[in-house]
């Protein structure tokens, strides 16, 4: 069961996200796959060096044996915000594009654009 820890799950999630980007032609599904990619990375950073039973790096730490690494957690807060911003921007653009082209399929939109 040691295979199921944060890192390995995040690697699996990452490749699920990449698969979604490659194989799905619906634009909203591509945006969702982007979100999956970002979550996978966040999970990877946070669980990278963790063992069982570590405590958050806040407050009284003198009694704790192992403390979680605070640097990735700080970086990931930034990353979550960035992910939120990017998702918001891409969804707005998607709505715009839907009103313009009337389709949620990458191929159809490309064809209409190239005409």
């Amino acid at each position: 069961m040691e295979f199921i820890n944060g890192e390995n799950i995040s690697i699996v999630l990452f490749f699920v996200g990449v698969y979604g980007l490659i194989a799905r032609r619906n634009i909203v599904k591509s945006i969702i796959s982007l979100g999956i990619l970002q979550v996978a990375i966040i999970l990877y950073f946070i669980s990278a060096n963790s063992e069982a039973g570590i405590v958050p790096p806040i407050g009284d730490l003198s009694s704790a044996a192992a403390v979680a690494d605070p640097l990735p957690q700080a970086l990931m807060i930034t990353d979550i915000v960035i992910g939120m911003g990017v998702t918001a921007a891409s969804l707005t653009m998607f709505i715009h594009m839907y009103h313009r082209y009337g389709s949620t399929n990458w191929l159809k939109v490309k064809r209409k654009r190239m005409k």
Partner: protein
Amino acid sequence: MLPVLVGIPLLLIKFNTAKKIITIFQGFMVAASVLNFLYIKENGEVIQNVANWPNYIGVALRADLLAGSMVMLTTIIFMSMILFNTKKDFSDNMFLFLFTALEGLIIGIFLSNDLFNIFVLIEVATVIISILIMYKRDSRSIYDGILYLMINVVAMAFFLFGVGMVYKTVGVIDLYGLKEKIALLSGPESMILPYTFMITAISLKAALMPLFSWLPKAHGTPSAPSIISAVLSGLYVKNGIYLFIRIQDVFASQIDTSAMFIYMGLLTAVIGFLLAVVQDDIKLILAYSTVSQIGLIMMAVNLGDERAYWGGLYHVFNHAVFKSTLFLSAGVIVDHYKTRDACKIRGVYDQMPVISIVTIFAILGIIGAPFFNGSVSKYLISFGLTEFIGELGILIVNLGTVTIFVRFTEIFFGKSDLKKPSVDIYSTGVIVFLGILCFLGGIFGQVIISFLFNVSFDVEFASYIQKTASFIATLFLGYGLYYGFIKKINIAKFLQKHELTFNGVCTTIAIFFIFTLAYVRITH
């Protein structure tokens, strides 16, 4: 940071005063960056730790000679752009704010010394650029905008994953710290995967084959204001190359993939000019030519010969100058003729003589005419190519570049029935300034190189003459090739039709990743 901080309050000020303040502020930025650069030349690198954390732990800004010169280039080009835009009617406060924010971000990327900082800055820059390229609200470019945003975010996701793996193994993400720690590793095995992730991402930002398809869309989209295309082509892809140099440097002690990137660069350059010659839209011609030049620079930087390396870096500067000139003048031409089709635009020399002459300067620069800046950098690059494939390769690339611009110069001849345009002193002035820079960069090439990079080379007179001769020969060959051959064959329509969809691009990212992984695995 300063550009962003100044840009924000400007949203509140009335429009006319805002323009003047921005121009003055921009002049201040240019002066500051020049002073900074001179300081670095005297005293060596400057490392400033934000909030005074000890080295390698906090966020640091580093300005060495390369970064300092890039920052100078950035501020000078932004200054020119802002002057260019003074009379345009679409640049309201929001645009100026986004534009100066972009400048702050690009400078930040050049100066930052740790990987996460780079990631954050690039992500924000991606969002800002996708808004800026859709600024004129042409509805066709909504597709280009969303494609640009999503492709770059995917690339950055790869990058961040690589950073995570590096952090897990090594524990620092500061570039200097990384370099030290990686040299201590016993073998490259643990670094292969994160290196591949990061290099895939950076190759996409630097628009290498096969990951460049976002670039023509972003740079040539109908609603991008010309200064945005100029800044993107001139500066932002250079960011990609700059990061490429830094990352290769960090991993150099364990992993060395220069051989692969030489061939990638060559392939990019060739495919870039092939696709450029068949385009109809003048902005797309310029965008594909950027791809081709980036291939050339990538080749030069990876060759390992010192002269070729600095030649490639000088070409970065040259390319920024002449691409900006070309994009700006293309913008002016498009505004006047109301069409972007190169087959329909004729008689530019008749209508706008000053701009035509300056554009010809820039074209001579990019094809490497003697006395112009392109020739100095290409001359230096050719030193690095000793084997036959390399020499043949660079001949083919030069030929291709000439052919592209033969097509481009078609717009100068002939007559047009439009009436003469009104002369906008700011735009014309800026274009003339940049065009003259092309010329000066050629004559004073050695002086400039030794000033910027602290290295000096002698340009032997005899081989320069030989270069001139081969240049003239290439010119004739390119002319003949274009008129005799390409115009007859109708490949144009065929090549224009094939565009990758978003899924196609992601597939190519995945394929590039796997290919690089296999290559690094096999050679290490």
